[in-house]
């Protein structure tokens, strides 16, 4: 188990990062910090998927002169490029909601907002 985990250290690291992010989402009171936790989770999943494409000693998958095998798997990179854009979009919307909440209620602490309701 530990040996296997050591071989898959990249995956293990992103799992730990994922849990750290989730911890922040659940326990933080400040809406922006909550959302930063979510960004950490996003990064963890992206790192996990990009790590799926790594091959030992691999080069960037750009053909042409001087290109030498092995190349790393290009597909996860292409997927995560899309994933990043999605994450940015979600962040933009979340921040604009936070701006509105701040203007309306004068606070972005979750417990104070609950009282205000």
């Amino acid at each position, binding site marked *: 188990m530990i040996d296997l985990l050591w071989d898959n250290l990249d995956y293990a690291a992103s799992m730990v990062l994922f849990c750290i992010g989730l911890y922040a989402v659940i326990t933080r009171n400040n809406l922006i910090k*909550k959302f930063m936790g*979510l960004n950490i*989770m*996003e990064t963890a999943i992206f790192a996990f*998927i990009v790590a799926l494409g790594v091959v030992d000693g691999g080069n960037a998958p750009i053909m042409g002169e001087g290109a030498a095998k092995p190349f790393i798997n290009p597909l996860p990179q292409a997927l995560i490029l899309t994933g990043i854009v999605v994450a940015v979009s*979600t962040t933009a919307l*979340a921040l604009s*909601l936070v701006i*509105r909440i701040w203007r309306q209620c004068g606070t972005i602490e979750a417990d104070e907002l609950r009282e205000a*309701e």
Partner: protein
Amino acid sequence: MTSWPPLLVLFVLTPLVGAVLTPAVSDASGRRSWEWALGTMLLTSAMAGALIMRVLDEGPFSYVVGGWVAPYGIELRFDEFSAFVAVVCLLGLLAVIFSRHYARDALAPGRIPYYYTLLLLNMTGMIGFIVTGDLFNLYVFMEILSLSAYALVAISGEKTAEMAAFKYLVMGAVSSLSILFGVGLLYALTGSLNMADVTGRLAGSAEAPLVLAFAALTLGFMVKSALFPLHIWLPDAHAIAPSPVSAVLSGLVVKVGILGMLRVYQIAYGSGAIDLSGLNLMLTWLGAISIVMGAFFAVFQDDIKMMLAYSTISNIGYIVMGLGLASPYSLIGASVHVFNHALIKATLFLGAGALIHQTGRRTLTGLAGVGRSMPLTTAAVSIGAISIVGIPPTAGFLCKWYIALGAMQAGEPLFAVALVFGALLIFVYYIRMVNAFYFRKPQEAGAPAVHEAPATMLVPVLILAALCLVMGVLGRLPLSFIEPAVTRLLAPLGGG
């Protein structure tokens, strides 16, 4: 039926182009945006009709974008479950029609063009989600759908709208990540993202990651469809959103989670690589708990939209229980309830929207006696209420009956009891509502004289109410329509 032009891809693109162009064709206060959105939805609905004719004709078909071959290109696929797009287009169309006066009165003028844009983008996401045959493409369309849904909740201008939207966003984003993680794991195990290809290559994978992949996908879709105890985002979001949006969210968007689950089942059963009986048992229990808890909370609501929102949780429970029981009858019942509940809940939310719009009140106490001044709308809402309880001959009856039969078939009569108990609770709270409409006197003497809503609001509500009855009478038709898909789904299990 010719295969060119590839209607399947144009079907996704039409609402997309219509949506992004809405602000450009309308002026700042939203003139012409209604007409534009209406035209887009009409065109999209026509395409949906053509696609469903084709699936009736020749069974499931697919199209690979860009002239590549699957699994290297992205495959779009249309099967019997995809026929849900018919309801999507119908509700989308009616929600747009309903919005004509509603949006003008309820929303800030500057927001109106963007309201229609987001509504159409929501449709785009939903249609793309339903017709895609590629796991990552599914995620992309799910995000279009989710982002527009968060914004549509926030757009209403109610005091706590932004907070409800933020809560929805955080839960939604976590569930999306869970789904993306599941997709990543499936990719790690098979090297492919095409659903059919993944299904074929899954056998012999290591067990622990496989179980985790399906757990992550299920968890994500369960949040999207607001299954107890992951429902906490739903009541606020659905109650606060503008009424047409509530109808779309409650009728369609939560069903996307269910359709996602059906896709997961297609992969899991088809590959035979994993035994889902543990998951099914859990889903059956959570479904049963959802039925009872959702109905229980609904009984105590005075706010009519809040009540309808809790009733959605209860009905999702029926569907999930049907999925979890995994017998042919229960699956057929659950799949058809996905369609029928969409119609019923849209009737109720649009009807409630019309009542709130005309009277300015949203509590049952405030709406007392409204049956006298708005007879047509309250009649439509009452038909919706009877349907959702599941009294024959309305749309809700046959699917619940099938789910109960399925529980018997699976040898779990206990769950049939839960189903009936839930129906009784639902009966109680809709009796409260109908009672308030018809048999209680208006509370305040000085209540403004109200009359029926304008035609653009009344007609969609009446159409939907009529459909609730028609679907009940035609009950067998959708059941026999969905049957081949369910048979195919269960075939690898040998149960058929």
